[in-house]
């Protein structure tokens, strides 16, 4: 009989120090962060990915990553843009994993689809907005959502996207042009 396997288990367990908890917050604090920001993150992912199920998966993945890296966030005021930046990366990975075409990403699904009935129910503008989002590149779509739906400043958008502030302004402006064209019923012409 040898104790080597036992020691190897001990080494394996202690080696987990490399993955030591990045955050010093307790479980209750993390729970509060989740409750406060998860709706916003999921909404962002819903806009990026289209699918509600994919948005839920992405939300979960975003917070798992965020909580493991929370200690790397130096400025607590930047938590929301930081989370949205992680969510954007998660969405990009999800798109790549599924090998979806950009045009498919926001394809209408289920009752969210742009049907005559939904138009009659007054959701025509929403349908056109979804069409507009689907027609945008993922980055431009993200920038537009961060600006209009999440009300981030251009500096925060630039930070989340890894851009300069002028580029963030240009990308949002170009995305807006497309969105307004769709809302005007002129989306196909652009």
């Amino acid at each position, binding site marked *: 009989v040898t104790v080597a396997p*036992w020691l190897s288990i001990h080494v394996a367990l202690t080696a987990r120090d490399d993955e030591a908890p990045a955050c010093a917050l307790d479980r209750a604090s993390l729970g509060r962060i989740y409750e406060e920001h998860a709706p916003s993150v999921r909404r962002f992912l819903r806009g990026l990915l289209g699918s509600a199920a994919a948005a839920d998966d992405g939300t979960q993945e975003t917070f798992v990553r965020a909580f493991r890296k929370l200690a790397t966030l130096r400025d607590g005021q930047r938590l929301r843009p930081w989370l949205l930046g992680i969510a954007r990366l998660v969405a990009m990975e999800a798109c790549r994993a599924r090998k979806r075409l950009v045009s498919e990403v926001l394809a209408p699904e289920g009752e969210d689809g742009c049907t005559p009935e939904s138009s009659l129910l007054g959701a025509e503008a929403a349908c056109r907005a979804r069409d507009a989002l689907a027609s945008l590149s993922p980055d431009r779509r993200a920038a537009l959502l961060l600006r209009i739906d999440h009300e981030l400043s251009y500096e925060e958008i630039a930070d989340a996207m890894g851009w300069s502030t002028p580029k963030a302004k240009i990308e949002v402006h170009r995305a807006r042009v497309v969105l307004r064209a769709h809302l005007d019923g002129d989306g196909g012409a652009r």
Partner: protein
Amino acid sequence: VSACPEDRLEDFVRGDLVGAEAASVRRHVDGCASCTGEAQWLMREREALSVALFTRDPLPPAARVLSLAAPPRPVASWLGVLSLALAPVAALVAITFVGARPIAEVREPVVVDARDVVPACFLGGDATEGANAVELAYAACLVASPRPGRAAADSIVTDRPLSSLGSEACE
């Protein structure tokens, strides 16, 4: 009419401006057709996206996210020292009770009551730390003491399967 407050128009529409600044922008917008049109577009964009992204679905449960996010806690250094201190004892017990048996017999399914070898304070304290302590002691027991009680050990450690550790230890 004053110069168009392009940079502040979006803040104005969002309601982020207050007091004199808000009043100033409002006065301008009321007298400027271009800014009135732009303000209407800004509101229309927000409303369209708001409806497009609206959902009533409940969020994924926080508990699940937190459990996935929580990395395994490292074994405390004093636990490591304790583990090393126990190693010779485990080896001695193994030689006494199992030493004469062929290795093949050691690989047979082994059952151990971990509560016999793990101080009660481990089991009553932090769940993860306790689990690590139980795993260490349990692995030692597998090579040392083929006594009944594996079911009891499994019932103590609920968040980490012991079967893989068990087979690894026996090999």
